[in-house]
């Protein structure tokens, strides 16, 4: 269990810059997420931490030790790959035991630890199976067991759930969090799925265009995004400039604001002012929307401003309905453009 420090790391593939001066401090035992759209450099950063690539500049430390130039096999890592990467010529137990062999853990201890690791991922008794006989979810569990069985000081997970179906994905992310917390290892988890990150991470870094845009807890990053890109990437966001903010709430705190759709309340037409906040209502027209069962996502036109609104337990509404949107001024979060 060691902290991981990334300092001023830059990397480019040929002439294409991928990472530009990335710095992160990841605490010991933390489950830390790298979140971003494809091409933002998150996987490259993970590969640098793993040692598959060398940074052009910058330093990576595990604990106090500079590992920047250390080859992968000497970094004491565990890694879960997007395509699992189980070795097809070894059986399940052979895959899990490989890392222990490298650590020269022998005989009965090795067997016991392989069994324990398989039990931890719910695959007791699968040791003699061929890798090809397993389902996607089971392969994922073997990959996880293989990564943690060596008790690595850092666990790396590269989009580990992206090849699973939605249901299994939800089940596995709880599983991964449980195993990480049980082993107490420092884990770095790469994903483009913001729901996965918000639900699972201790802290996360949102990466945009090869830079870290924001680091924080899921709640901080969602509620207080630093800029428009982060706001848009983490869920839906209404971005309002100074004039729009004044028109909707009567005041503005900055040049650009993020307003989350679920912070907007809809009331019937003609309601001048609603709720304990005392904020004024603005007349609007419903343009269209999607009913999603427990909630609905509407698009409304509030005197020329298009807004996305999420309404829980929605009443029957249809396009063309006149409504009043009610916004508390404190819910407008100032963001950088």
């Amino acid at each position: 269990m060691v902290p991981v420090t990334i300092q001023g790391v830059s990397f480019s593939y040929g002439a294409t810059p991928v990472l530009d001066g990335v710095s992160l401090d990841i605490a010991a035992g933390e489950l830390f997420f790298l979140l971003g759209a494809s091409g933002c450099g998150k996987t490259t950063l993970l590969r640098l931490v793993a040692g598959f690539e060398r940074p052009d500049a910058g330093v990576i430390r595990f604990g106090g030790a500079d590992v920047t130039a250390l080859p992968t096999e000497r970094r004491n890592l565990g890694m879960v790959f997007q395509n699992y990467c189980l070795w097809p010529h070894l059986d399940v137990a052979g895959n899990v035991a490989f890392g222990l062999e490298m650590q020269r853990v022998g005989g009965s201890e090795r067997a016991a630890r392989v069994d324990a690791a398989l039990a931890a991922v719910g695959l007791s008794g699968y040791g003699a199976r061929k890798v090809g006989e397993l389902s996607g979810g089971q392969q994922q569990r073997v990959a996880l067991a293989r990564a943690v069985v060596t008790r690595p000081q850092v666990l790396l997970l590269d989009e580990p759930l992206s090849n699973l179906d939605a249901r299994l994905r939800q089940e596995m992310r709880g599983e991964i969090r449980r195993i990480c917390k049980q082993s107490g290892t420092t884990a770095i988890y790469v994903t483009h799925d913001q729901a996965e990150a918000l639900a699972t991470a201790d802290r996360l870094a949102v990466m945009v265009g090869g830079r870290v845009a924001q680091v924080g807890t899921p709640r901080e990053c969602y509620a207080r995004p630093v800029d428009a890109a982060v706001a848009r990437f983490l869920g839906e966001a209404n971005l309002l400039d100074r004039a729009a903010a004044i028109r909707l709430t009567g005041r503005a705190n900055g040049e650009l604001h993020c307003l989350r759709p679920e912070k907007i309340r809809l009331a019937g037409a003609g309601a001048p002012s609603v709720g304990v906040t005392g904020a004024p209502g603005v007349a609007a027209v419903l343009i269209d929307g999607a009913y999603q069962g427990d909630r609905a996502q509407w698009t409304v036109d509030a005197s020329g401003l298009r807004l996305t609104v999420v309404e829980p337990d929605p009443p029957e509404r249809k396009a063309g309905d006149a409504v009043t949107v009610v916004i508390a001024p404190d819910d407008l979060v100032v963001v950088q453009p």
Partner: protein
Amino acid sequence: MNRSLNRSWLAWTLFAAVALVLVIGVVVPVVTVAGVGLSPAWIGEVLRHPLQRAGLGNSFAIAVVTTLISLAIALPLALIGWRLRFRGQGVAEALLLAPLILPPFVGALGIFQLLGVHGVVNSAGAAFGLWLPGHGPDWLGDHRFAVVCVVEALHLYPFLWLALAAAAARLDPGLIEAAAASGASRLTILRRIILPLLKPGLFAGVTVIFVWSFTELGTPLMLGFDRVVPVQIFNGLTELNTNPQPFALVVVMLVVVAASYGLAQLIAGRQPDAVVVKGAARSAGRQVRGWQAVLAWTPYLLVTALAIAPHLMVLALACGRDWHGTLLPAGVTFDRFRDALAHPNVVPSISNSLFYAGLATLIALVIGFAVAWITARWKPRGAAALDALAMAPLAVPGLIMAFGFLAIGVWLSQQIPALKPWLDPFANPGPLLIFAYAIRRLPQVVRATHAGLAQSPPALEEAAAACGANAWTRLRRITLPLIAASLAAGAILCFSFSMLEVSDSLILAQKRDAWPVTKVLYDLSSVLGSGPAVACAFAVWTMAFLAASLCTAAVLTGRSLTGMLRE
């Protein structure tokens, strides 16, 4: 930082070492031959001398006619296979590839019995009353040119068929349907749509066959057709020190080969991108059943029967007793198989060939794996050039390469007498033969290994690194086991084809007790009396060995023989 520098230094050392071996094995022989023979006086003399002019003309004519016959065989078969689907098509197509594993050199032994004045064909003709017994046409005397062309075409058509079938498989059926919808007749579609689209595959195959038949030594040599360039070069070897003529002939040959490649490139041009169908291509085939399927099978069986007839003849000759002027032998005997193994030259030649081919395979595996790793995994600048260099032995005729090795060996042992026991083919042809075999069969090993590496994702090795395995352990525990089947297939192909290699063996093995199998076969076949029959029995042994090792390779890789040869 130090360590990564260290690693790239190691990798570049490997790159340099492999490149050096390839340059020595591929570039130097060709350059040497060109350099030694490139004298205007000698080349002028060769071009003026009536015998050599006749040889050049004959070689050129053989190449043209062989190519045309191959085309006449392969194009219809490729079109049938593309348009029709019938039961057992896979088997029919596998049969077509039989010539790839049957050395034409061996088949030539059977040709005499088949087409000799007192051979099977003439006996059959006499039986049907076409001519009096013993007075049939002298095929091998009067029609030797035609016989050489047909035998070579029956050996070489698979290359063209493979190229055409692959090109046809990439044709988008929609293009043909569009032409039909525009009102084009079948013949017009063939002429205006299909053939132009097949052009790149066609030229690739045609070039290979043209070059191969222009430089083929084994077939005309065995059939006694002396007035062609390769045989003239071979016969000139005995007076190499006094007569520069073979070198000049090789240069002329090299020029013709290079010009053929260049011309093909120029005419064929590039494959238009639109032709390539990505993903699930619709099958263009029409399912046929019953008598139509039988009809579809017929050309496949006919071509295969013609192609393997000489080899069946070799088998029959090995078993037949007193076979002269009759349709069938007087009796059956298996003594020849025993005699063959008891012949004083045979046993040493088997152990020689096993030794040469074994060592050559080992060398080809090491170099081939290094090349494949560099081109499939590391991919540095220059990887493509390295790959091209390793694949070049496919394009450079065996005769030219063999001649280059001979020239280097002779020259080096003259310059540095200490090297004479190792490099002079007249003193010890072993090292040269081993290296020549290895280089000759390197393309097969590189392709097989490259395919294996390309199929096993590099992330599997990264996963091992993440588990703490160092580079050597990753190679030993992950990479090599994963591609073991591919390596084994490449090794067996390399080994078995080295056992039956002709050009290098005939030219480089200049010392009797170092003769490999093929040289002994050639020698036996020219011994009067029982020689040819014993040679046939020996040839049957070698073909059985080849078949067994190819089947082993197929079993090891879990793939069909056809799939392996297609590679």
